[in-house]
């Protein structure tokens, strides 16, 4: 009881303290890199678009840094005991930026009509959905065909952005002229986009939560060169460098400046997980012993400390430790060149060279590829680095024209959303760089992945995923590298910028500047 009281008091204090201090006004300049191709979040979901449009569009729920769902457009929600019926009660008095009232019809249109056609990632979750209905203007009911545990994670802004029915219904979505001036329900309104320079958002004065947002305006600045982005922060031109906007070796220099803070939080929902595709179909990488040897040969701690400046965590397997159902009760691959040599000798590796495709996302990835090549050559594996640009990388990986290829993928909070897609045989499809590119085919595990997705209780699911992790980690279908961490760097007088599992993407909603 004492404990309870103390906790209650602490929570009350925590809630009360900042409220008194929050100050309205001011502007934020945030780097966006590269320039987004468009801002209509229902049509385009690449990183830069999510960063900017996350202030314009909203979804039913938000997720804190522990991935616990929080209210957003939905005020409250219930899930039936059988895990089949999700009922959302919407917030009253919400309007679109053009003044039209927001209703349950918008939600049904977005999820059932618009996004079904445009959103590849959501489509795979919607396959479990039987019907989406709106019994009244403030209630939406999703009824599933079978239980789908991760469904509660599908209501994030980049996953299920709610788009205005009155603007898009019956139109050609991709060519709707309104795409140039996006209309959402979010805390900021689209104001202007000077292509090549900046995107300007202004405060939504009619936002449905009194007092929010605190900021008057947000500028997303397009600065194409990584060194220039660092300079822009140094000279005070920009206030926020979202994760990944500068090269890693600039991070220590910038964070040592006065009044500069950084945080690794705000990526929990995405949990970027890096690995090398190992082509399971042909060449030395088709042999599980070779793949295990690669795991033992790599000094991943070194890469974390040197190439990534200490940011991140060595991955133990397919599921990120930030994602639900992670377990480290598995075979751990340490840096053990002797073991790697033994395995190579056992398989009878004949020195056939393997081609390594780095990720063309800047110097860090190039250096990482060089570190891996050195590690592998130390145990006698011949590696040839093949470099290409982003389009070439997409082509080579999606056409399976590689031996080893760097990549990193988001996990979206649940193994059934962001992990199983890379390992089950039904996702072996040429033409996409994001599915089972390595060609791992294990029917017994496929059945376990499928079963784990549709179990009702978290306890059952945890047990099922532990079983899967133990088995797949011994097979090494891909060479898991690091759980990446992209620090967000910002001026310390900006408060409450990163409060959710998607970080800066919906950060300006609550952010304020201390004067």
């Amino acid at each position, binding site marked *: 009881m004492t404990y309870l009281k103390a906790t209650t008091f602490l929570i009350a204090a925590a809630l009360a303290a900042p409220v008194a201090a929050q100050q309205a006004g001011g502007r934020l300049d945030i780097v966006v890199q590269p320039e987004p191709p468009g801002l209509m979040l229902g049509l385009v979901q690449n990183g830069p678009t999510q960063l900017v449009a996350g202030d314009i569009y909203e979804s039913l729920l938000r997720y804190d840094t522990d991935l616990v769902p929080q209210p957003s457009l939905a005020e409250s929600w219930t899930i039936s005991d059988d895990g089949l019926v999700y009922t959302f009660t919407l917030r009253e008095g919400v309007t679109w930026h053009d003044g039209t009232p927001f209703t349950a019809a918008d939600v049904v249109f977005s999820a059932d009509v618009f996004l079904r056609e445009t959103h590849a990632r959501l489509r795979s979750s919607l396959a479990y959905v039987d019907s989406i209905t709106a019994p009244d203007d403030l209630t939406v009911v999703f009824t599933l065909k079978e239980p789908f545990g991760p469904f509660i994670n599908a209501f994030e802004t980049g996953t299920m952005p709610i788009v205005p029915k009155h603007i898009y219904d019956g139109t050609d979505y991709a060519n709707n002229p309104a795409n140039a001036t996006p209309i959402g329900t979010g805390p900021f309104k689209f104001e202007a986009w000077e292509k090549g320079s900046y995107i300007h958002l202004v405060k939504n004065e009619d936002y449905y939560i009194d007092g929010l947002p605190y900021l008057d305006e947000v500028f997303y600045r397009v600065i194409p060169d990584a060194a220039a982005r660092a*300079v822009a922060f140094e000279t005070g031109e920009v206030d926020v460098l979202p994760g990944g906007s500068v090269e890693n070796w600039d991070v220590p220099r910038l964070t040592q400046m006065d009044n500069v803070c950084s945080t690794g939080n705000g990526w929990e929902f995405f949990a970027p997980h890096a690995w090398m595709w190992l082509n399971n179909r042909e060449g030395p990488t088709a042999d599980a012993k070779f793949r295990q040897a690669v795991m033992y040969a790599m000094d991943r701690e070194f890469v974390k400390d040197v190439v990534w400046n200490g940011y991140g965590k060595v991955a133990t397997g397919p599921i990120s430790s930030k994602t639900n159902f992670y377990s480290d009760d598995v075979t751990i691959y340490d840096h053990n060149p002797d073991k790697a040599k033994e395995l190579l000798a056992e398989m009878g590796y004949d020195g056939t060279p393997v081609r390594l495709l780095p990720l063309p996302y800047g110097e860090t990835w190039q250096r990482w590829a060089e570190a891996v090549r050195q590690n592998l050559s130390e145990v006698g594996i011949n590696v040839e680095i093949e470099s290409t640009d982003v389009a070439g*990388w997409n082509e080579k990986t999606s056409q399976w024209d590689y031996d080893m290829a760097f990549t990193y993928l988001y996990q979206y909070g649940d193994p059934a959303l962001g992990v199983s897609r890379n390992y089950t045989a039904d996702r072996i499809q040429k033409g996409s760089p994001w599915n089972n590119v390595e060609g791992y085919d294990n029917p017994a595990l496929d059945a376990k992945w499928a079963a784990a997705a549709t179990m009702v209780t978290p306890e059952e699911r945890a047990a099922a995923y532990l079983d899967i992790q133990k088995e797949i980690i011994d097979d090494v279908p891909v060479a898991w590298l690091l759980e990446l961490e992209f620090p967000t760097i910002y001026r310390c007088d900006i408060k409450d910028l990163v409060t959710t599992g998607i970080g800066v993407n919906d950060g300006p909603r609550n952010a304020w500047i201390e004067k």
Partner: protein
Amino acid sequence: MSVFIVIVSRLAKAALTLLAIAILNFLLLHAAPGDPALVLAGEAGAADEQMIAQLRERFGLDQPFYVQLGKYVGSILQFDLGYSFRQGAPVSQLIMDRLPATLLLTLTAFVISLVFGIALGVGAAARVGRASDSLLTTLALLFYATPLYWLALMAVLVFSVWLGWLPGFGYETVGANLTGLARALDIGRHLVLPALTLGLFFMAVYMRMTRASMLEVSQLDFVKTARAKGLSDAVIRRRHILRNAILPVVTLAGLQAGQLVGGAVLTETVFAWPGIGRLMFESLAARDYNTILGVFLVSAAMVILFNIVTDIVYRIVDPRIGARA
């Protein structure tokens, strides 16, 4: 041959050349790995067959190659550069949006390099062998040999980060809502570093070329004659030597002018200048076919146009050229 006929025949040839360039660009670009649908799908972080098929259909990439080429050539012949599906806008509009910024930058650099290059070259030639000449030639050599990229970064570091005199990047102060003269001054301040960076290389080239050419011409017999007539040094330099020495500089200036539209990729990237060079580079990375082809075509047209202009300038500077042809 009159100048008029020269221009007409050159323009006719230019149209054919442009068409050939357009087709060649199209073939080269489609030979590069990847396509815009795959890049867009890749950026989304998730993709299924339906999505990629939808995108290909929208972009017209599902049609046979010769149909795509035929359509492209057909629309070019109607002066239509096509539509950028990635950016959701007509290519001509994308180019026109970026053109003012690029022309401001490249023209400023062009004028700076030409004026100062020739002036310093003439000055150095007049003081040949003296300390000031050595200093100028050494500086010119330095700027000639330094990579543009490095020079740009150093300029930002010194004048923007350390001294804080000039903005290090961008086209204008974002969100300042300046108008009229204040805005012009603001853009001018942003223009200084990129224009100097871009102009220094050609300035060095013009200077060295003017100096060498001046020295060569000054040894010729007609200069001795002029001197014997008792003309002043200044008149001889301007009317007799410079006019004859300037031809190679005109040739090179024609080349530089051809790059006014597409030649500032690096400078625009380092200084975040919202111009055509960056549009081209970013479109190339995204395989935004229509946009790249559009920029290539406009750049090619500029090169051809300035070749013609250069030829005409030749005739004005040296009337003998027209008479001989």
